[in-house]
């Protein structure tokens, strides 16, 4: 895209952000779909694990795998090292499986899906029709129809309700379906890669997920293939007292490329809900994966009631030489965020990038960051993290950069900046740096500051009110990360930044 054009769009977006601030209520996805649901009994046990497996009609090996994880999980304790404070989670007081009644029989095509579900996604701005790009996303009209298409896998509570553009993707050899389908249709791929990046026993939440994950997305890009469109998963939690445990597995075979987007929302409720997901990405020689997330789970209300507890394990394994991965995340939602998308740079000349914006307002708490594990020679990594705290929120960057003795000539650059809005919030940085060879270079920089008075004054003097001015300055602060997002996501993210900060000024 020509530079001029890009600038144009960005200018437009700033205006849009300002408008969004004026027009929007705080959490616009807080409504609930009234739909008849079917639940598994409350609590977790071997029976529940068996039940989830049976509901998904899984083969014996998958059930065994889950049970192994469950037995391990029972012996583990919840980690407490993050700078997060929340009431004890009662794991027996949750529903581990909830699906719309109408999904009892898997619809064969999107036409058979319950219209209520389709309407839900329509309202979220994610139409499950094979028509356009993510319509409803601001700025979509700027694109020529048909030029950019996004295939969507929509997950509603515990089940995937449908995946779009499957046929078109199949033409290119790309497999994009729900993980429950993949277990049945492509067992050889799932067996080979599931748990190979995030093992069952990896950590408390990942192990829980391994035992009870109900659905999620599966992607396989064959060798030498550039995925013809962007792939996307949209997660929606709807049912009350339900935990969502989805599992995503992406395999990019030699020389392939895919860009993957993830979005999530949940209704407003005054009780907290648990979300423990696992994302595994396997990247073989010369392949490249871009994974972008806009996390907009319900953050709880102004008093800190309710919201999603988001404990997520995301990891990419650059297994082959010259494999590349790029994580981009915009974390605006969730009452509690515990998330460290990581890169294992195993192959030589591999590259890992992590761009993050984490915004915490009101009583939100975020403890997020990344791990860059350099094992291969000439591997490169870059971390850009922007944390914004407002209200009474606490925001922590936690990261690890490690250079293995054999990772000669590797390079890391880390920048983490924190912005504080108001004197009741906190911003923290906890980086771990381990350098075990001298041909590598590791640089780390971190700053903490407040919204610059001069910049605010400049905006105010030009007629903006304080909230608009803050949103503009914050968007500027996040610029480096926003630029790393795919275009339509970047636009959504920019307006989210403004919305998330609403009420933080004055």
């Amino acid at each position, binding site marked *: 895209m020509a530079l001029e054009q890009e600038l144009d769009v960005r200018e437009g977006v700033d205006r849009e952000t300002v408008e969004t601030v004026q027009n929007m209520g705080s959490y616009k996805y807080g409504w609930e779909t009234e739909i008849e649901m079917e639940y598994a009994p409350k609590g977790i046990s071997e029976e529940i694990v068996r039940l989830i497996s049976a509901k998904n009609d899984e083969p014996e090996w998958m059930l065994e795998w889950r049970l192994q994880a469950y037995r391990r999980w029972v012996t583990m304790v919840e980690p407490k090292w993050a700078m997060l404070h929340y009431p004890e989670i009662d794991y027996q007081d949750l529903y581990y499986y909830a699906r719309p009644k109408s999904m009892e029989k898997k619809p064969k095509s999107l036409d058979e899906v319950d219209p209520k579900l389709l309407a839900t996604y329509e309202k979220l701005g994610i139409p499950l029709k094979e028509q356009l790009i993510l319509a409803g996303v601001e700025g979509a009209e700027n694109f020529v129809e048909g030029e950019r298409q996004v295939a969507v896998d929509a997950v509603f509570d515990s089940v995937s309700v449908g995946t779009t553009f499957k046929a078109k993707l199949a033409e290119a050899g790309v497999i994009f379906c729900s993980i429950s389908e993949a277990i049945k249709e492509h067992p050889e791929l799932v067996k080979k890669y599931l748990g190979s990046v995030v093992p069952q026993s990896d950590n408390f939440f990942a192990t829980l997920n391994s035992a009870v994950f109900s659905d999620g997305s599966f992607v396989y890009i064959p060798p030498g293939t550039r995925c013809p469109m962007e792939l996307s998963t949209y997660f929606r939690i709807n049912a009350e007292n339900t935990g969502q445990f989805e599992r995503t597995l992406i395999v990019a075979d030699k020389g392939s490329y895919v860009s993957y987007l993830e979005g999530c929302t949940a209704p407003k409720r005054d009780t907290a809900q648990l979300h423990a997901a696992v994302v595994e990405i396997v990247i073989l020689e010369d392949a490249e994966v871009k994974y972008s997330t806009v996390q907009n789970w319900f953050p709880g209300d102004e008093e800190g009631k309710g919201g999603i507890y988001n404990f997520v394990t995301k990891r990419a394994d650059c297994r082959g030489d010259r494999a590349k991965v790029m994580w981009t995340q915009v974390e605006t939602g969730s009452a509690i965020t515990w998330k460290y998308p990581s890169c294992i740079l195993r192959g030589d000349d591999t590259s890992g990038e992590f761009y993050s914006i984490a915004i915490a307002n009101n009583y939100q708490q975020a403890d997020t960051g990344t791990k860059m594990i350099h094992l291969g020679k000439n591997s490169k990594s870059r971390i850009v993290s922007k944390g914004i705290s407002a209200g009474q929120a606490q925001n922590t960057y936690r990261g690890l950069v490690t250079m293995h003795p054999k990772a000669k000539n590797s390079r890391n650059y880390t920048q983490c900046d924190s912005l504080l809005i108001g004197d009741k919030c906190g911003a923290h940085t906890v980086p771990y*740096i381990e350098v*075990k*060879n*001298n041909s*590598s270079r590791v*640089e780390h*920089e*971190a700053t903490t*500051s407040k919204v610059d008075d001069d910049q605010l004054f400049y905006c105010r003097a030009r007629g903006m009110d304080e909230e608009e001015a803050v949103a503009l300055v914050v968007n500027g602060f996040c610029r480096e990360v926003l630029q790393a997002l795919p275009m339509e996501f970047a636009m959504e993210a920019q307006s989210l930044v403004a919305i998330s900060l609403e009420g933080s000024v004055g």
Partner: protein
Amino acid sequence: MTAVEKQTPLEARLAAIDLPKGGAFTAARADALARLVAMGLPGRRDEYWRYTDPAALNAPMAPAAKPFEASDEAPLFNGMDRVKLVFVDGVFDAEASDAPELAGVEIARLAEAEAADIHWAQGLYGTLETAGQSPVVRPFAALNSAAATDGLLIRVTGKAAKPVSLIYVHRSETSDPILHHVIKLEPGAEFTLLENGPAGARFNKVMEVDVGAGARFHHIRAQGRDHERRAVTGIFARVAEGALFKSFTMTVNGVLTRNECVIDMVGDDAVAHVAGAALGDGASGAFHHDDTVFITHGAERGESRQVFKKVLKHGAVGTFQGKILVKPGAQKTDGYQISQSLLLDDDSQFLGKPELEIYADDVKCSHGSTTGALDETAMFYLRSRGVPHEEATALLVLSFLADAIDEIEDEALKDEVVSRLEAWLARHRG
């Protein structure tokens, strides 16, 4: 209870120590012991010991270390006008020392003051150490307060005309000294403390420094050239309004060094700078150097600096764990932390955790950390101008260390430190 029941590591450690009893500091010592029992000895699983193995510090007996006599250079600070106070394997040596007399400065020996029923340091001994135990416990400091056998109690009421210089001599292969100093600067006082020497096979030292309003405290320390000694030290400082605290440490060699520094900036407009230059060559024995610094800003307009540089070769390991904590209301804080390591070969390691924890919005806090080899461009520049490789390395290393050395204000002291660094580089070529 049976005799076969195994002692815990802490019980074994305490059994090997003859805990002092009675005297002015009885209550403080009993309190420290109770706290130590509650926290236990550290292990590798403890967050702040993940990069340093405390086994040698936990062991009941000090691992043997041969004393090292430097025949090739004069003792540090030799020609300087100072009050010299000497400890040999942790015991004060009056004969080798100058008379502890200096205008505006009261100096007493802990071992002697203890015999008295009342002493000015009574309300201070162990209190800054106790305050520094939260939020992270520091078991060796609690052990020190409980078990210290000697040390100095220094009260400064005016501007000291010359520095007090503490010299720690190591003679016995198994000496395991525990020293505890309490230093109090009354408002407006000025004082410079010099320390050098390895002190023993294993040295545990705590220094509590209370810097009164507007007072200025300078501390320059060199941890000796002994190859085999181990040391765990703790500085616990409280810095009042408008006061200044500056500490610089040079470490060359030593199997294991853990320097903790806990600074609480309680008054507005306080200034605290902590700096360190560590040079480690694993070829002359193992080298593991750990700087663990925790600065708390509890008042407005405070300025803090942490400047730590490490040069490592032949399997040497450098660790930095630094933290700036800005409490709610500590507005206009200016905090900066830099940790840089130069790895001169492929065996050496740097492990670091530079942290910020900030609860006030109108602050300027940042940290930086870099690790890597010597700059090739700079090396090429020097080589192309005919500077031999060894000399060029020494030159670049010294310039790399400059930011830390610059934290020493006194020019003469700075020159003295630089000359030692140059000598080290000359000894450790290749």
